[in-house]
């Protein structure tokens, strides 16, 4: 293979014949050799005041669009005077190619220019987008609440079949992961409690700590975070791809209510699954705590659960349980809304899925904080 300098040197010869600039094209002018030729062309072609150029292709081996483009670009010359060209020894196709390439030089695409204040513009846009997002989500929550009330009034209109199949995916399929995660969280709380409380000699209070933390907060939070990660993203992706394939449009035209067919079953599945999953998480978390209490501090299972039942009041259980359907509802609504907001591109599907999970977890934690304040004020 010849070096690139070699290719460039032997690519063309320029000469003046009969007061005309003649560019004799040699060798291969294809995309493989275009790089070096391009460089040489830019350095050397000088029209010398000629308005007419002849491309002599008799000795060229091959010329493709890249080659034709480079040739045609030379038309402009260094001083931009050449405007007409003709060819010697070019096939019909090559002539066409050269003409097309010369044409292409006429339209310059716009270049995206960045301004120094772009940062501020984008900040403003993001703020407006954020506010709109909150507004739209709230409006959508309202719509879904209306739809859900309608289904209570007319249970016959609910698509129970899809509700049941969604409960399987949202609820049943999540059981193993919820059990495992909650168990470990119970263990961790018990460990921390044991270490901390041992310094005061009141290790037995770790039982209260595990009970309170698991029942009030962790069980429901684990459930909500798993639901946001598993189901919410799945809702966005499935509804989003339905939007992309115009299935949602088809539904609307046929007269199906998208809120009723797509959103309501998902919201219901979440509402029904969440308390059950939370209950399972509570049991598993307590068992995790009990196992650690047994191993580390020699507190027997009997003692552990007896203390739980005497010292932990039932209201703590209810605090956890009340939050479950609220979180589930908000997760389902955010997932569905983001899915419906997908536009045509794959890019937007990915973006919406991400923001759906982020928003859902964000909403869950904010709501949890509000609940905490509320229950504190209520002395609950």
């Amino acid at each position, binding site marked *: *293979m010849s070096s690139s300098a070699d290719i460039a040197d032997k690519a063309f010869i320029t000469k003046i014949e009969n007061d005309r600039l003649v560019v004799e094209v040699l060798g291969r002018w*294809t*995309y*493989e050799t*275009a*790089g070096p030729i*391009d*460089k040489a062309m830019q350095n050397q072609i000088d029209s010398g005041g000629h308005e007419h150029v002849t491309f002599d292709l008799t000795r060229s081996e091959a010329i*493709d*669009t*890249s080659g034709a*483009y*480079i040739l045609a*670009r030379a038309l402009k010359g260094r001083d931009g005077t050449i405007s007409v060209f003709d060819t010697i020894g070019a096939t*019909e*196709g*090559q002539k*066409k*190619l050269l003409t*097309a*390439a010369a*044409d*292409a030089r006429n*339209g*310059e*695409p*716009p270049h*995206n220019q960045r301004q120094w204040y772009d940062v501020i513009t984008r900040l403003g846009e993001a703020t407006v987008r954020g506010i709109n997002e909150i507004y739209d989500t709230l409006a959508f929550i309202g719509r879904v609440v209306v739809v859900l009330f309608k289904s209570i009034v007319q249970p016959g209109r609910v698509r129970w079949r899809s509700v049941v199949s969604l409960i399987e995916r949202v609820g049943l399929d999540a059981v193993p992961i919820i059990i495992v995660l909650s168990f470990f969280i119970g263990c961790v709380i018990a460990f921390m409690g044991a270490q901390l409380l041992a310094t005061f000699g009141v290790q037995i209070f770790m039982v209260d700590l595990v009970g309170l933390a698991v029942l009030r907060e962790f069980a429901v939070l684990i459930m909500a975070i798993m639901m946001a990660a598993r189901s919410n993203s799945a809702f966005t992706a499935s509804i989003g791809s339905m939007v992309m394939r115009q299935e949602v449009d088809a539904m609307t035209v046929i007269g199906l209510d998208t809120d009723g067919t797509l959103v309501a079953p998902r919201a219901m599945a979440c509402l029904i699954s969440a308390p059950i999953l939370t209950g399972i998480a509570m049991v598993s978390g307590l068992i995790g705590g009990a196992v650690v209490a047994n191993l580390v501090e020699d507190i027997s299972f009997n003692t552990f659960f007896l203390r739980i039942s005497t010292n932990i009041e039932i209201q703590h259980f209810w605090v956890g349980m009340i939050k479950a359907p609220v979180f589930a509802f908000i997760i389902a609504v955010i997932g569905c809304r983001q899915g419906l907001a997908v*536009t*045509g*591109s*794959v*890019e*937007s599907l990915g973006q919406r899925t991400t923001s759906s999970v982020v928003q859902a977890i964000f909403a869950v934690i904010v709501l949890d904080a509000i609940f905490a304040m509320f229950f504190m004020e209520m002395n609950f």
Partner: protein
Amino acid sequence: MADAKFDITDDHPIVAKGIKTAFGDNVVHENLDLEINKGEIVGVVGGSGTGKSVLLNTLLGLRKPDAGTVYIYGTPRGQLSEKERQALNNRVGVLFQGGALFSSLTVRENVMVPMREHSNLPVKLMRELADMKLHLVGLPPHAATLAPSDLSGGMRKRAGLARALALDPGLLFLDEPTAGLDPIGAAAFDQLILDLREALGLTVMMITHDLDSLYTICDRVAVLLDKRIAINDSLDKVTTDPNPWIQEYFGGPRSRAAAVAGNRGGLKESKK
């Protein structure tokens, strides 16, 4: 050079022999032979579900035939090494049905993808070449910086064609290039393919249902019927074939109208 093994001057860039394709018990192609002459535009027609797109995928190497061989430039596809396949892919351009543009890139970047992967052109030249190809397929200059999702269906096809042409392939596959275009856009697309064939010396295989395209630009028509290519000949010969399906296909009112339009002149006269 890398593509020493193929003879790109081969008279038949694509030859398929005894192709069999089956999905489970469902045999789509059996004993299918197809030969495409260099420099010709061949239209492949066939009823829905006769496996036109499957045939395209087989020829492209996206699907391994269950029996038979595909020869590209005289070399069986299965015998190519990884490197040769790479070199071969540079010689082949494909326009998929929906354009298949990469949605995360702008139109210009889409056209630059094959150049970036398979050539060592300077980036500035690549950009200029991409813009030129976009001009060549008839897109306005401002389309270069748009995202594919901002384009209409017809523009997306043109952009897809520009990408297929990025490395000046000798062989071009088109999957229903004019489907979904309005008649004006479809006629312009036909003319574009004719022009490109003349300028670049392309060999084109197109799957199409567009009778106008068949009558105006195709040199040959291959009919996919009964799991094989029943006839692969000039349109005059194909239309006189006695097979009832072919008669129905080309004897219908739509076909007659297209034939009248095609004979009245239009594009065919601009051909050599």
